[in-house]
Every structure is written in structure tokens, then in C-alpha cells.
């Protein structure tokens, strides 16, 4: 199981774990994301594989001490490949009662709770809705509890640096980080350097934080903590050699778009409107003007997609990005891009819905919207990224298909991928294939809707090109000439051609491979998007137990890979876990008339590995 598994209890003060899950939780002002990202850095440097997930409230400054103001950062790290941010917690660091209350259900039995007892006062307990102090009333008996007055210990540690009490208390999280560094044998140097850089202008703040870090670490070393809390070892994982950095999906999506535009030889025009959880893509790209990236914050979602379409029409790679509700607003314009046959990349960082739903919680319920969500027969390409690291390649693939086939391409990410992070082996970009866009320049015989016989793409004739002035639009266009046409037979042909163009892209895709297991057998688990991690780990755990189950994961959802029907036909049963009510499963059933069945979850949280294992076991038992 991903999560922790004691490999050996070598000696009483040094336990070795294959992996561990730690969550830092506190008020949104307590610096939990900073704490988590520093712990992530130190863990990566220690050679573990890892995955992280940030869970923060939708409210920007929720009232202090409330349960809805709790911000958390979770990291799963291990001596082997880590694919999810972890099912259940080995360690919870709770900076106040609300943080304890909200996260209690996720701690595994016997897990460790580190609580800042100094923050458990009558007032904060009341705010969190506790009648009695959980640190004292025995309600945490299922866990190992380490209650420390972190607040007092921190103030003690920073008292010599001339910072105010308020500033001193803001180092609480770093004291706790120091203790965790000791607990897992992490080096402090990278974090020390980070503080020195970050607070170069306010050295007293840097020094106070470093002192808190050291004090927390020293506390671990000197306090005689119970043996089972004493230092834990998670040995380095076997990781493919290479240069790595830690990335979120929004980072890699943004960089993939930059790379995709470069590979096509185009300027990137990124037109967007802020929305959770997609805004970060805009923030990343806005800083990359020196890469020829033009960013435009439009007045609304519709203007954003329209500006992107205008930019593509004028010869850039137009890209727009949003989340489900914003994509809904862009729908009519997507139809225009389908009709005018212009390249366009649309990113949807999906979130829980309908309507505003739960903006900071993840879901993958916009697949129908992506594949079918337009008026009339308006096919386009749909891709899905499986992980933060995968986003880079998917964004490049989206650019390739958009410019090669003169079509909008929708990329499905989600709230989990957008803000989760994992180490990313930086690719050798020189080795990645180029796909230079070809602008039409030949005036003789030019027809704006005469198609390439292979790709069925129309020529891209950019305004400013001598001799190619022409008119296009959303009215149905005559085959070849592109003149407005209400001709019945022409509309039939153009509708069929638009469909054939998208369907034909299947010939340009790699064959669908099997991630794990044999290409036929009693059960295939088929997934798309961010369910990759839990499905892969569940299937791999059960295969390690000798069970016959395969994992197939789709990147291309429209069109589906050409061999997918045949591949799925080789399995007796097909299980499709999705964070929706069953959208891919409907697609597969209708495409291949297969008895695929869904495993569906819409809690705003990713699947747990155990949930998928359980479902697989039930299916396999039923097969026997």
C-alpha cells in the first residue's frame, strides 16, 4: 500500500519506513504552504520520491481559528515510486484545534499527532467547536499524541532577535518544521539558505526563523521523546538518473505551452480571465514575456477565448484557460473556432460543480462538456493530463494537434493536478519533435477551405499575407472557396469533413498502451486524468499479490486511440474509476458497446488507493 509500511524495526530509536505521509495543518495565516514546500525541498534533496497536495480554503482570509479557515499541505514520500499524495496520514502537525478537528479523520490508527498545545486555549477550542480539550479528554486515544507548547518554545527561541511577539509567533510553523526535519533526518541547509535569500532585507526575520528551525531540531535531539516517535528513516528511492525539479501542474502546463509554441515556430498569445484553480497558469506565463509570450487578462471568459481566436487568426498560437464555469461561457466561441477551423488550445482545470460548486476542490466532471458541450455537430480534440509532470507533454501535444489540424484542442487538467506537486525529470527539449506551423503564402489558386488531403486541415492564411485577402466566419462556408453557402449538400459535406478531420487524428496518435499488466485478461481498470496515481498504485499492489488485473490510462479522449476498442475487447470486465458520475464509462460504452462499469466518487478529494483496490477485488471475485 502507498502510505507507510514499516520495512523493519531495526532498532528502537531508528525505524525504517518505505514511505510516509505527513500533513501540516493550521490557519490560512500560519504559513502551512511555506512549511510544506520547504519540507518538500528537503525531502527531494534527501533522494525520496514524493508527491504533494495543497488544500487551502476558498476564503482568502477566513476568520482565524475556524474550521473553514484551515489550510493544509500534505506530502507523501518514500523509498519507492510515489504516485499519490497518500491515502492516510502517518503524521499530522496541527497548529490549532480547528486544524486537528478538520484533519482527524484522515490519520491512520496509531498515527502521530503533533499539536501546538500553546494554541489550544478556551477561545480557540470554542472557535473550533470543541466542548472539551481533545488533547486532554482522551478522545485521541487511537493515535500517538505529542503535545508541545510550540508557541512558547518558539518565542523562547527567537527572543534575542528583536522581533515582536506577533512576528515571533509567526515562526511557530518553522519550529515545527525543525522538529520534523529531525524526525526524518532531513538537512536544514537548503531552508536556511532560502530564509537568508527571502528575508535579505530583514535579516532579523531571517535569523528568527532560522533560530526557530534550529530550536525545533534541537528539541528533537535533546528531549527524551517516546521511542516510537524517535527518528524515522525513509531511505532514498530508486529514481531514474537526471536533473529534477519540483513542479505543480500549473507550472508544467504553462511551460509546455511555451515549448509547444516554440516547436510550432509561433508566438504564444495566452488570453485568460482569473478563476480558481486555473489562474496560476496566467501568473506563470505573464512573467515569460522574454520568451515571446503575450498574456492578456480579458474582461471576461468570453472575451478571453475570443481574443485567443483573434490571435490565432492573426498567426499566433492562441490559448485560453479556465475552469468548468468559465469554459461554459466560452462555448459559443469554441463553435466559431470549430467552424472557422483555427488552431486554439483551451485549458480546463476542472473543479467540483455544478455552478460555482467547490472551487478549490477537485473533480473530473467536465468530460461531457469537453467532448459534447457545444451546439450542433462541433467536434474538437480533447486531451487529459494525468499528473503535474505529464502536463508538459500534454500541453506540447495540444499545440501540435491544434496547428497541424487547424482545430481547437481542449486540455483537461483538474484542481488536484493544478496545485499538487511532484519531482519532474526535466526533459531534453532538443530531442523533442518539432512541428513547424505552415502559413499559406501562395496566392495562385488559393482557396481558404481547400483541405490537405491527408490531415483534412485547411490552409492557415494569416492577415498581412500579400494576395490572400479572404473572408471567413461562422456562417457555413462552401467547400474549398469558403464563401458563405446555404447549399444543403455542401452543409452535409462540410459537417462530415469536420467530423472526419477530428476522427482521422486517431491515425496520428500512438497506439494505446497498457500501463501495467497484460493486453488482455479478466479485468482492465481504465482511467483518465489525475486518477492515474491511485489506479496505478492499486493495480500494482494487487498484481504484486498475484492478481490478474491491468491498468490502461487514456491521454487522448477525442478522438480515442484507434486500437482502443480492440484492446478493451480483450478484457472480460472493464472498471472505470472517475471523479464524476460516470462520463468516460458512457463514452466507452457508446463507442465500443462494451459492458464497462464505473467506480465513481465526487467528494472533492482524489480517490484513495484502498478504494480502488477494494473495487478491483470485488470485480475479480465476481469473475471467478
Amino acid at each position, binding site marked *: 500500500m502507498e502510505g507507510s509500511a514499516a520495512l523493519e524495526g531495526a532498532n528502537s530509536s531508528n525505524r525504517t519506513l518505505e514511505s510516509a505521509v505527513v500533513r501540516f495543518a493550521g490557519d490560512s495565516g500560519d504559513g502551512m504552504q511555506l512549511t510544506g514546500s520547504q519540507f518538500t525541498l528537503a525531502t527531494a534533496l534527501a533522494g525520496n520520491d514524493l508527491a504533494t497536495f495543497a488544500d487551502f480554503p476558498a476564503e482568502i482570509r477566513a476568520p482565524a481559528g475556524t474550521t473553514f479557515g484551515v489550510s493544509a499541505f500534505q506530502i507523501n514520500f518514500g523509498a519507492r515510486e510515489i504516485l499519490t499524495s497518500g491515502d492516510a496520514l502517518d503524521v499530522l502537525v496541527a497548529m490549532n484545534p480547528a486544524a486537528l478537528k478538520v484533519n482527524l479523520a484522515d490519520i491512520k490508527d496509531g498515527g502521530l499527532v503533533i499539536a501546538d498545545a500553546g494554541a489550544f486555549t478556551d477561545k480557540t477550542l470554542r472557535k473550533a467547536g470543541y466542548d472539551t480539550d481533545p488533547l486532554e479528554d482522551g478522545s485521541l486515544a487511537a493515535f500517538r499524541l505529542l503535545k508541545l507548547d510550540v508557541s512558547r518554545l518558539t518565542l523562547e527561541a527567537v527572543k534575542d532577535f528583536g522581533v515582536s511577539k506577533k512576528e515571533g509567533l509567526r515562526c511557530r510553523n518553522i519550529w515545527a518544521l525543525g522538529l520534523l526535519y529531525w524526525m526524518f533526518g532531513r538537512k536544514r541547509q537548503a531552508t536556511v539558505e532560502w530564509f537568508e535569500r527571502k528575508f535579505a532585507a530583514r535579516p532579523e526575520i531571517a535569523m528568527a526563523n532560522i533560530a526557530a528551525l534550529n530550536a525545533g531540531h534541537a528539541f528533537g535531539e535533546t528531549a527524551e521523546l517516546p521511542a516510537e516517535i524517535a527518528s524515522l528513516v525513509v531511505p532514498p528511492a530508486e529514481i531514474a538518473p537526471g536533473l529534477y525539479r519540483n513542479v505543480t501542474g500549473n507550472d508544467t502546463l504553462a511551460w509546455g505551452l511555451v515549448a509547444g509554441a516554440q516547436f510550432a515556430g509561433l508566438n504564444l498569445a495566452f488570453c485568460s480571465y482569473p478563476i480558481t484553480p486555473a489562474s496560476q497558469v496566467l501568473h506563470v506565463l505573464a512573467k515569460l514575456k522574454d520568451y515571446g509570450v503575450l498574456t492578456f487578462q480579458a*474582461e471576461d471568459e468570453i472575451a478571453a477565448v*475570443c481574443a485567443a*481566436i483573434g490571435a490565432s487568426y492573426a498567426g499566433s498560437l492562441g490559448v485560453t484557460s479556465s475552469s468548468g464555469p468559465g469554459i461554459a461561457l466560452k462555448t459559443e466561441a469554441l463553435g466559431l473556432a470549430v467552424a472557422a477551423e483555427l488552431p486554439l488550445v483551451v485549458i480546463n482545470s476542472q473543479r467540483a460543480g455544478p455552478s460555482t460548486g467547490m472551487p478549490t476542490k477537485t473533480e473530473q466532471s467536465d468530460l461531457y462538456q469537453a467532448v459534447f458541450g457545444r451546439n450542433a455537430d462541433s467536434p474538437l480534440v480533447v486531451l487529459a493530463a494525468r499528473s503535474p509532470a505529464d502536463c508538459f507533454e500534454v500541453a506540447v501535444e495540444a499545440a501540435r494537434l491544434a496547428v497541424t489540424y487547424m482545430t481547437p484542442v481542449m486540455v483537461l487538467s483538474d484542481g488536484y493536478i493544478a496545485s499538487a506537486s511532484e519531482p519532474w525529470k*526535466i526533459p531534453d527539449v532538443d530531442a523533442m519533435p518539432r512541428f513547424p506551423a505552415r502559413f499559406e503564402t501562395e496566392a495562385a489558386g488559393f482557396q481558404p477551405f481547400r483541405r490537405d488531403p491527408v490531415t483534412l486541415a485547411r490552409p492557415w492564411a494569416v492577415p498581412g*499575407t500579400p494576395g490572400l485577402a479572404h473572408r471567413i466566419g461562422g456562417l457555413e462556408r462552401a467547400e474549398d472557396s469558403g464563401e458563405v453557402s446555404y447549399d444543403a449538400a455542401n452543409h452535409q459535406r462540410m459537417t462530415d469533413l469536420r467530423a472526419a478531420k477530428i476522427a482521422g487524428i486517431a491515425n496520428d496518435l500512438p497506439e494505446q498502451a497498457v500501463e501495467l499488466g497484460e493486453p488482455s485478461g479478466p479485468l482492465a481498470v481504465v482511467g483518465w486524468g489525475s486518477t492515474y496515481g491511485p489506479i496505478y498504485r492499486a493495480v500494482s499492489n494487487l498484481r504484486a499479490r498475484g492478481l490478474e488485473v491491468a491498468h490502461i490510462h487514456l491521454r487522448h479522449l477525442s478522438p480515442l486511440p484507434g486500437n482502443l476498442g480492440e484492446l478493451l475487447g480483450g478484457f472480460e470486465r472493464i472498471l472505470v474509476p472517475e471523479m464524476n458520475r460516470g462520463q468516460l464509462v458512457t463514452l466507452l460504452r457508446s463507442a465500443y458497446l462494451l459492458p464497462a462499469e464505473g467506480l465513481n466518487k465526487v467528494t472533492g478529494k482524489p480517490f484513495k488507493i484502498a478504494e480502488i483496490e477494494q473495487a478491483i477485488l470485488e470485480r475479480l471475485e465476481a469473475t471467478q
Partner: protein
Amino acid sequence: MNVPSSPGPLTAKDYASDQEVRWCPGCGDYAILKAIQRTLAELQAEPDKTVFVSGIGCAARFPYYLSTYGFHTIHGRAPAIATGIKLANPELDVWVVSGDGDALSIGGNHLLHVLRRNVDLQFLLFNNEIYGLTKGQYSPTSRPGTRSPSTPQGSLDAPVSAAAFALGAGARFVARSVDTLQKPLPEVLRRARTHRGASFVEILQNCIVYNDQVFGDITDRAVAEEAQIHVVHGQPLVFGKDRGKGLRLRPGTLELEVVTLGPGGPGEIELLRHDETSRPLAALLAAMAPPDLPMALGVLYCDPAPSYDGQVWEQMAAARSNGRDRDLDRLLRGGHTWTVPG
């Protein structure tokens, strides 16, 4: 389908496409099309560097009838698409053609923003105070009481003034003309094209089928002289038969009044002079309407400011001036990295 490469200068005819024009006979759009083709010829605009963008409505068919590049898009969104075009290639000369429904109803938001951003393009609003293409419903510029299929007892809501809206949105160029005024209209269009930044031009246009003569109180030959004032920068605000009337501020107020010039009355020296760089004056002019005041035509306001697209590209150039190339490795390897040894 392209411009015949005439040996000499391009004529108005060279800006016509080979498409048969399909507006209703007698539609004011024909006159506007003619005025634009004349303007383009006068400016010797390069058809290959000119783009006409439109939304939906009768006016939106405009791009099909010109020999330039053209993009007939979706309802109300032409300003946003035009913004994308201009940002991607600031060398292009971009025109947006729109109607009162397209620009002020479904697309009001985009018009607001394209004007306040000051994107360097020309925005032409053909105002006929009615929905034509959908067969005659009242529009956001229709006068209260307009009887239409959707308002059989007369419309109730107050209309929006296109020019006042543009000024309120922060437009730096606001002009108004009339479809049939074949001398002033090309001149206004020429000024709009010459102005750098968003140029807003309201063109009063007659819909012969659904709203015929809605501007009769301004355009009828019998009343035109008294009902129109053609404003000229630096010149006194005079109008009327034999230029016998003028505009001045009613003493002690911020309101315009009509005075009769001549013996016994005030002289031209007491009139307001048109200052097209004055936003307060432009607001007063934009609000004028018969019967009390004449309709102001011409360039009401022109006070250039840096264009949005120009500034965007300045920022791009500044970012590039660090001399660094577009090396992807620099981007991807730029953060905190570590090496896993082989």
C-alpha cells in the same frame, strides 16, 4: 476573389469584393459601404494589411463585401476578437463593424473594455435603433414607446446614448455621422483611421424596413440645417440656415443653449468654440438632440493617448532587451534543481 492589382492607385471599386451585396434595397448600409470604400481608397489602405471584424446583425455582413481580410464572428464579441488580432499583429489595420444590438446589448461589455483599453482600431457602430436581422424588435437605443413585435404596447426602457457611453467608457476618439452624409462621413472615417488608439464612430443609419425615417427629425432635407451641427475643432459652434444660430453656455449653468446670431443678438465671439480635446464639452455635445438642441455631428472628441497594443509590445520589447534568448533550457532548469546520479 482578391484585389485586382491595378497598376495605379487603388480606387474605391478595388475595395469591393466579388460578393453580391445582400442588404434590403434602400438600406443605409449601402451608403456606409460606399463611404468606407472611398475612405480606404483615399488613404490607399493596403487591402492585405486591413482586417474588418464583425459580430452578428445586418451590419455584420460588412466584411464579406470588402476585398480586405475579413472575419465575421459571433454576436457582440467582435471587439474581443479584434483585440486578439491587434495584439498578435499590431501592424494590421483593424476595423470593427457593429450595430446597436451587437455593440450595446449583447456586446456592451466588450465595447466598454475595448474603448477603455484604447486598442488601436476603428469601431463603427451602425445605429438604426432597431433589430433588423431578427425582424424588427426594439433595441437598446430605441426611443421609449417604440412599438415592435416584442413591445406591442411600446417599449418601456430608457435608451442608451452610444456616444455618451463611449465617452463614459474612456474612449479617446468619439465621432458621429449619418449614413447619407457622403461628404462628412468619409472625413470622419478618415479621422478615425488616422487616430492612434480606439476610434469610436456612431453612424446614424436608416433601416428602411423596420424603422424607416427614425432619424427623419435630423436628416430630412427640410429640417437638416436646423437639426444638425457639424462641429469643427477650433471653430465656433454655429449651425442653422445661413449659419444664423450658435451654441453657448447658458449663463450661470453647465447647459448649452441655442442663440440666434445677428443684429441685436450675441456675436460669434460669445459662442463656444469647439475644442475636441475637451471631454466635458464632448459630453455636452454628445447629449444634444432635437427638438431643443441640434444633433452634434463630426469629431466630438479626440485626445490621443498611448494605445494598449503599443504598450503591450513595449513591455514585450523591454522584457526581451535583457539580451537573453528564448532558450527553453533556461526556463525549465531555472528553478531549484537537483541531480539524481546514474
